[in-house]
């Protein structure tokens, strides 16, 4: 369909303006994190002084970054393992309790995180996982399960039966079939599930805030927030924006690289 030059120009102008508006805050944050200001970590010019200043808050950036990484790696791993095995079960087997378990898993969608964090706080204490990165990771995994299992179940259901049958004829066990035949076939689903789990875990705030009273276990979002509210006197906004960038860059990079998988995950989710 041919559009007039005027309409095309209007379209691109509008989109350009909107693009600037949407990219502006992030771009500013990056610039502000490098900018020099008297009295801050970066006294003048541009450089990483603000980052150095931020790195020295509390127990130190290395500690907080480690916490974030540990939580995220564990969550993503658990989510992938549990949802792959579970998706395989729901997609390819029949067993007693199958429907009940599937419904219970989907029911998690009806319960927002914040409503069960108080009992979770207590429960984790009972099973010796209070104030632990592992406890937080398992909690985050649980919240990923509805989407992850739905995604993996669909992925497994879409694998052609012939592939499996070939493996069974060769005498492979169901586990061997899973590993050698099914996993490669559901790789796109795995990437999408991993990506969603990463973004959710890396950026989560309220769960570690409530489940990790010990500040040495805080991940980046909680630590950055504390650095904004626990300082006496004026807040060092440059250091704060450095913290923002440290949190944002991994998420942004991963999203840009795996955009297609993200949108694919969306489409499946929207259909549900």
């Amino acid at each position, binding site marked *: 369909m041919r559009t007039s030059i005027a309409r095309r120009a209007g379209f*691109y102008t509008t*989109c350009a303006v*909107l693009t600037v508006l*949407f990219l502006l*805050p*992030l771009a500013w*944050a990056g610039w*502000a994190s490098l900018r020099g200001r008297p009295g801050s970590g970066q006294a003048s010019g541009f450089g990483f002084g603000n980052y150095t200043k931020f790195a020295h808050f509390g127990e130190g950036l290395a500690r907080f970054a480690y916490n974030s990484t540990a939580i995220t790696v564990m969550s993503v791993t658990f989510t992938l393992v*549990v*949802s792959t*095995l*579970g998706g395989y*079960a*729901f997609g390819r*087997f*029949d*067993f007693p309790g*199958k429907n009940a*378990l599937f419904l*219970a*898993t989907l029911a*998690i969608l*009806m*319960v*927002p*995180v*914040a*409503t*069960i964090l*108080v*009992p979770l*706080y*207590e*429960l984790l204490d009972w*099973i010796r996982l209070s104030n632990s990165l592992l406890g937080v990771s*398992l909690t985050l*995994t*649980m919240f990923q*399960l509805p989407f992850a299992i739905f995604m993996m179940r669909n992925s497994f259901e879409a694998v052609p039966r012939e592939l499996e049958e070939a493996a069974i004829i060769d005498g492979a066990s*169901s586990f061997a079939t899973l590993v050698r035949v099914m996993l490669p076939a559901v790789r796109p689903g795995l990437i999408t599930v991993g990506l969603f789990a990463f*973004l959710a875990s890396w950026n*989560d*705030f309220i769960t570690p805030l*409530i489940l990790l009273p010990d500040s040495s276990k805080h991940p980046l979002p909680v630590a*950055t927030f504390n650095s904004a509210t626990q300082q006496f006197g004026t807040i060092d*906004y*440059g250091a*704060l*924006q450095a*913290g*923002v960038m440290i949190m*944002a860059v991994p*998420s*942004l990079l*991963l*999203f*840009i690289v795996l955009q297609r998988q993200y949108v694919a995950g*969306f489409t499946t989710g*929207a*259909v549900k």
Partner: protein
Amino acid sequence: MPDQALVQKRRWWSSRAVQGAGYATPTAVVVAVFFLAPLGLLVWMSLHEWPILRAPTFNAPDNYTAIADNQLFTDAVMFTLKYTVVTTVVLSLVALGLALLIQHSRTGVGLFRTAFFLPGAIGLAATSVLFLGFLNGRFGPVDPFLMHLGIIDEPISWVGTPNLALFSTIVLVTWRFAGFNMLILLVGLHAIPLEVYEAARVDGASGWTMLTRITLPLLRPTIALMLIISITGSLVAFDQFFIFTQGRPDNSTITVVMVIFRQAFVKHDLGGAAALSAVLLAALLVLNGFLLRLVRHREA
């Protein structure tokens, strides 16, 4: 044949049902321990006085009756509802506008879609910290820009009045979630077959007619989905008010979840916090049930 029967009996553990159950076990464990158990515990805790260090004592229905007297909670409910309505309207309109704008394939559309969605890749907490600086009168670019244009004379506090604080937060949330909601709508838009538009164009329908008579009606389930997600998310809003407005000014921007947080970890009353959580959860379940039925009813 007897041999066959013997072989099958010996390998009970290799039956499909047992294997399936085996693969489903990790899921069952996580769901049972980290979801079902806490749900049950939530109700149990709400019936007890549950201080952080001492043993709990049964005190039903005190935790629940205390809610009606909790001024902070009732104020928070009103504010959260107000915030939800305004945010949902603004966010939906912006997302719809963006989706309609870039729904057709053209050169550069992929780039624009990425740009609009990019804020969605960073966390809400990080966004809130970002805006602490971005909207700060002395540090951020917004006030100097407005002063340069002559719109204001001196830096203003974007959380200085209740309405201004709400406005700033809605800008923050719209920036962060417009792209996300836009993606949901795009999925629905792309599902509309082109032939429908072609037929309408042949009949001489204008752009506006096509929008209101074809696009929007066919988009209804998708819009409903977006609304449900948006409304539920707004009702449990926490990060942006805890980090960005911090309840300012004068506790006028406190949400329901913030009250639960305060009850549990500032007032050390886990039983009361559990009761508040249970009430919130019940309200959300009723609302979701109602909204979902509304959607299904319309589709029929």
